């Protein structure tokens, strides 16, 4: 390996260190066909459940219409968002994400009352202290990072301004109290949920 700081190629090497998108993954066993089939089935049945809730008519004609529609949408979504080639379908997410949702709701409610107190405070301009903070998360997958970013945005007092795929967060916080808890417990919970 050349010395990155010498010669013309140095800049490229530096950029490469910084921008490496393709992380090294652990070599996994080749994907079985069943994982793909499971992905398709889960998509179809979750869409069909939504259809049943929306429709509310359980006669044969409307069920057939629903099945045909959901089949079409599933095929379309396979073109748009192909199932992951290198990982089995994450069944544990299906069970653990609702639990995380409940925990998050409680956090949101707690944080909301603090911001509500700030807004109704007569000397609000002295209380608030907006700032931008940066940190690096240890989460790696796109799904986990997206859930993390949206959780930060949902928790009042903090907004995710930008995220990239390497986990660099730029967060706008409305006061010091909201900012100090990051990344903290939430990241740990998400890491547990996604199994990272």
């Amino acid at each position: 390996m050349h010395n990155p700081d010498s010669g013309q190629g140095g800049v490229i090497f530096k950029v490469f260190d910084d921008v490496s998108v393709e992380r090294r993954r652990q070599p996994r066993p080749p994907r079985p066909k069943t994982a793909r089939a499971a992905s398709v089935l889960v998509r179809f049945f979750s869409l069909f459940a939504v259809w049943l809730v929306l429709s509310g008519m359980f006669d044969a004609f409307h069920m057939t219409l629903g099945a045909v529609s959901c089949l079409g949408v599933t095929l379309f979504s396979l073109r748009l968002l192909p199932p992951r080639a290198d990982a089995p379908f994450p069944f544990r997410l299906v069970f653990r994400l609702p639990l995380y949702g409940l925990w998050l709701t409680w956090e949101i409610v707690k944080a909301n009352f603090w911001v509500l107190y700030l807004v109704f405070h007569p000397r609000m301009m002295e209380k608030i202290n907006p700032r931008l903070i940066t940190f690096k998360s240890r989460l790696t997958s796109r799904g986990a990072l997206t859930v993390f970013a949206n959780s930060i945005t949902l928790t009042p007092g903090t907004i995710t301004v930008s995220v990239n795929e390497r986990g660099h967060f730029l967060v706008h916080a409305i006061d010091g109290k909201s900012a100090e808890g990051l990344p903290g417990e939430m990241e740990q919970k998400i890491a547990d949920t996604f199994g990272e």
Partner: protein
Amino acid sequence: MKRLALFTVILAGVLFAATASEFPRLGDPDSAPSRHLSPAYIQGSLPQTHTPNFVTAVLGDYRGFDTMFETAVVFLAGMSCFFILRALRRRGLTEVYYYRHKPTGVVLAMLAPRRISPRTSCFERIDADWTPQDMVVETMCLFMVPFIQVFALYVIAHGHYSPGGGFQGGVLLAASFILVGLSRDLRTVESLLTEKTAILTAAAGVCLYAGTGLLALFFGGNFLDYGAYASFFGAAVPAARSMGILIVEIGVALTVMATLVTIYKLVSSRGTVEEGL
């Protein structure tokens, strides 16, 4: 100029108000529609067409001609947008195509387009005014698109029972395509629904509507009289009308969706359906 515009707006408002005062009072039992027309529709729609929502019955069956030409108007609007806005490629004008090496971020400019497959290549084609895709927006939108499409199909299929129908469902379907365009880029939309396919789909929607009406002639009914299909479906006349309304709604939805996607692609990319918003 500004004052003139203000004056025009106020004048138009006064004229509207003056005209509106001449209308029959809302729910006036003595006005002509309330005496003859409304009771006929309200009482007739369920036994005659098996459609509880009589707005859909009026739209799809009683006034089928009106809706057919409305669909044709939507199609014509899309075609006129195409003819007015579409920028033809000029000969002799060199175009530059940009390709970005994903691992390093180095951008190459080429004078000729290269065919790359998105899955295997480490290059991606980017726009001239490229901004990095936002990860959160992209993931969430691609997650939502199938659900929006299912909702749109539900709106189309259940126009008989709830507010909805071809126009609304078509708009929601088009919105799902626009969401793909917003979260990825215009070329993804173009690969999912090419310009040619979109215009053909829009035409097919109008043809489906008109063809349903025309076919009724061969079964011995009037034009757009879906009751004539009763023998074909093996059902009673009202049920056949209900089926006919559903088929017609699907035609309307196809036209509206394809037209709106075409207009979005043209407007957001300055007429070249290459790169845009």
